[in-house]
């Protein structure tokens, strides 16, 4: 880990956002991940995205499980709430937290091990419930903390650091999300913040569960020749299918559309995602076309990136459950738990 804390010195032109905060106010502790880890770049993208949309730090909840990826929440927004759960259990914890307080912005950080192996079931159900949660999978294809075994996202034929080939089929979180009815699906690359930052901002604005599969090379165990999750391989095989811009609610969305002649999807909070450079026969709101496009290109070994699919029409967990607009934590205790007499009466009704 670095020998010193990041100096408090800043560039003289350092800007402030609408809240009067600088980007430095959205940083966390110094990273103890390996130097050059993709996860740290994702952290930097999160810091930038949260600063740019002027989120109040205390209105953010950061959640994670176990693994290299799950250390990430420590490294951004010191002033936010945080919960580091048991391995793979971040989705149910996030679901519970969101059930209790729907006002916070939930950012769950997970990895390919945490999400696609031990926590796969939990992730699937959080997707089904459409919990309003930004769910980032920092996907490097290996178990870094246990010295580089293949993870469930390792491609067939990819090589370990020692040269051994993987034979098991990978779980592709994007295809999995599409099959489970996820309502916001994106893939990006830690080495491309120009793409990742707008996707993160759109994910925060999304009505429900936002699944982000971010290729995040492991410099220590999976950045060699023969790996399909290295910096070089990702750069050589990346296909930026969709270019998307996030347009905050206050902005004049129509003006943007008029200029670019692009497709726009209005988000639940009044913001918009502006799709430019969408390929022919591709519609980011049409699940079948997205699946067809991904199968065609991923079959050729391409890593398709961009904000791949959005559906703003599906209600989130609270809407499905008709929970009150007021967060449950602010509902008086007597009302939430009316006592044994009321329970007895309720049970009496079922006898």
């Amino acid at each position, binding site marked *: 880990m*670095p020998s*010193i804390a990041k100096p408090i010195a800043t560039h003289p*032109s350092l800007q402030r956002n609408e809240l009067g905060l600088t980007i*430095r106010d959205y940083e966390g502790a110094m990273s103890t991940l390996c130097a*050059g880890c993709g996860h740290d770049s994702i952290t930097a993208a999160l810091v930038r995205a949260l600063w740019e949309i002027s989120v109040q730090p205390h209105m953010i909840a950061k959640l994670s499980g176990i693994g290299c990826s799950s250390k990430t929440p420590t490294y951004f927004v010191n002033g936010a709430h945080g919960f580091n759960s048991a391995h793979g259990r971040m989705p149910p914890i996030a679901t519970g937290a969101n059930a209790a307080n729907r006002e916070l912005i939930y950012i769950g950080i997970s990895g390919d091990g945490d999400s696609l192996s031990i926590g796969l079931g939990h992730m699937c159900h959080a997707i089904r419930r459409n919990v309003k949660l930004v769910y980032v999978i920092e996907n490097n294809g290996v178990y870094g903390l246990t010295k580089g075994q293949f993870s469930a996202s390792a491609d067939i034929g990819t090589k370990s650091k020692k040269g051994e080939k993987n034979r098991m089929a990978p779980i592709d979180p994007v295809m999995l999300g599409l099959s489970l009815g996820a309502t916001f699906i994106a893939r990006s690359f830690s080495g491309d*913040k120009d793409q990742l930052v707008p996707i993160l901002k759109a994910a925060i604005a999304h009505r429900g569960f936002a699944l982000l599969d971010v290729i995040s090379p492991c410099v220590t165990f999976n950045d060699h020749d023969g790996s399909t999750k290295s910096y070089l391989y990702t*750069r050589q095989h990346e296909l930026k299918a969709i270019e998307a811009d996030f347009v905050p609610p206050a902005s004049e969305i129509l003006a943007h559309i008029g200029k670019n002649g692009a497709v726009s999807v209005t988000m639940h909070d009044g913001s918009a995602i502006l799709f430019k450079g969408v390929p022919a026969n591709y519609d980011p709101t049409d699940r079948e076309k997205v699946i067809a496009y991904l199968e065609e290109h991923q079959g050729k070994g391409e890593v398709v990136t961009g904000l791949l699919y959005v559906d703003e029409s599906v209600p989130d967990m609270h809407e499905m459950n008709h929970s009150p607009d007021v967060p449950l934590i602010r509902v008086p205790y007597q009302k939430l738990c009316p006592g044994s007499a009321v329970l007895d009466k309720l049970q009496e009704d079922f006898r």
Partner: protein
Amino acid sequence: MQPTDVRNPNYYHKVVDCQWACPAHTNVPEYIRLIAQGRYTDAYMLNRESNVFPSILGRTCDRPCEPACRRGRLDGKPVAICRLKRVAADLRGEIKDRLPKIPAKKNGKRVACIGGGPASLTVANDLMPLGYEVVMFEKYDKPGGLMRTNIPAFRLPSEVLYDEIGQILDMGVDIRYNSPIESMKALLAEGFDAIFVGTGAPRGKELDLPGRHDTNRIHIGIDWLESIAFGHTDSIGEKVLIIGVGNTAMDCCRSSCRLGGNSIKVMARRPRGFFKASPWELEDAEEEGVEIIVNHAPKRFVIENGKLTGMEFERLEWDAKAKNSKTIDTIFFPADDVILAIGQENSFPWIERDIGIEFDKWDMPVVDEKTMQCTRDGIFFGGDAAWGPKNIIWAAEHGHQAAISIHNYCNGTPVTERLPQGANLISTKMGISEWSYHNDYNPAQRQKMRHVDLTRRFKQMNIEVELGFDIEQTAREVQRCLNCDIETDFTAARCIECDACIDVCPVQCLTIARNGEEDDLRKRLSAPAINLTQDLYVSSLLPQTGRIMAKDEDVCVHCGLCAERCPTAAWDMQKFELLIPYAGRPVNTESCVPV
């Protein structure tokens, strides 16, 4: 842009803003580190190598390094470089055995130095160890030139002055006191192998206004300071007007405070911000109760019954840039004494104009900027004598360059043959996240100099006002230095473009981008380029994407986090050492600091 060539010593040298700004290129960060380690003697010797007079300069330097200091661009106040130099000088141990050895057997060459000021002394300092016989002609009975006669003792105590002059004279310089040179022709006839003219700019400028010569209470600033230094003057009237607002004016007004003046006004033609005096000298004068009156142009001296009663001034109104003015009215200021401190001039009545030394239209000798040689071979100029009033640190640098020329000249090498500067780059990496320098950024504020209290300091002319930094102040101030000589050295071939360095940089000085012309590239940086005087480093093409790594040198704090977070050691923190050639020492590869 073309990839930056960091093998050219100038590139990294320029990053070390203080060293680049110093005429003598003193290795400031290195000596500050030595002070931090308590190695005061080593710090002193490192200073002495380039600037020859660390104790004197630690009190009186014009400090071109400080306005240049990168720290000033980060928190508004530069490192107190000059004060730290004084700490090294005050706390140093014995250095006799570390001064250059003087060969017993001389090389048979005789060099004359005219004047015993800093330029001549530097020439002697550089030539004596090479076996030269140096004869120094001093017009007064003591050495030091303007350092002694024009800098009051409350700023520069005489024991400090004589100690450092003694280091050089004790090398065996044949100094001849009370020996003004009256004729260059006569000196030439004495058969010296080379002659160095370091006679300073000894004539104060006149202000020929009505009444100037009708009283003996109008003084020329530098002459008046000189007469104090010699003990000829020990009092002044109560009401004193100083005309001019340069550093000499500051010395005059502060000296007046000590000699009986109690209403002392410095009269400036132009508004604040356009003064020649260094800000800290102005500050010190105002602390002593001196009033600075702006926008007043002298009109005439008022003499009544043969006695000076004061001066009339025109009150001016200036435009925003203080270029043009108009007169508002005329105003009278009473005065017992007036001191003129409006500049200095050179004067060479003793150089015959028919011996091949050309003079220009301002009656200044024509001197080559690199070689310090005038139009007659074998005669060299330096210090204020060369191009008019500068300062001590320039005089030292002129002395070094003149010594190289003299050594060349005496050995039959063309004086134009200058040996190049060199540079050493050594990695400071000791292990993972371990460096051989202290890379943490210390947010300490610039330390304030402590002064002797006002009543006590006015009692005597020679009470040094500045007390120097104490140990705690020194410990805090050294940590403010950013170690700009520990350079961020980049190897493009190793970069995997993981962005780790860009993400961690606290001052957003790094960018990976498509290459372009400088103007275009500067617009696409992580943080806007707000200081175009600072270079933009550009790497060769990065292997994976063909983009380039760019670094805006402006506010890099040299914390080394880019190198700590680099997985491939594409970034390294390398200590840059500028190797400066001196007379007889082509490029000094043996550092004077023992490892």
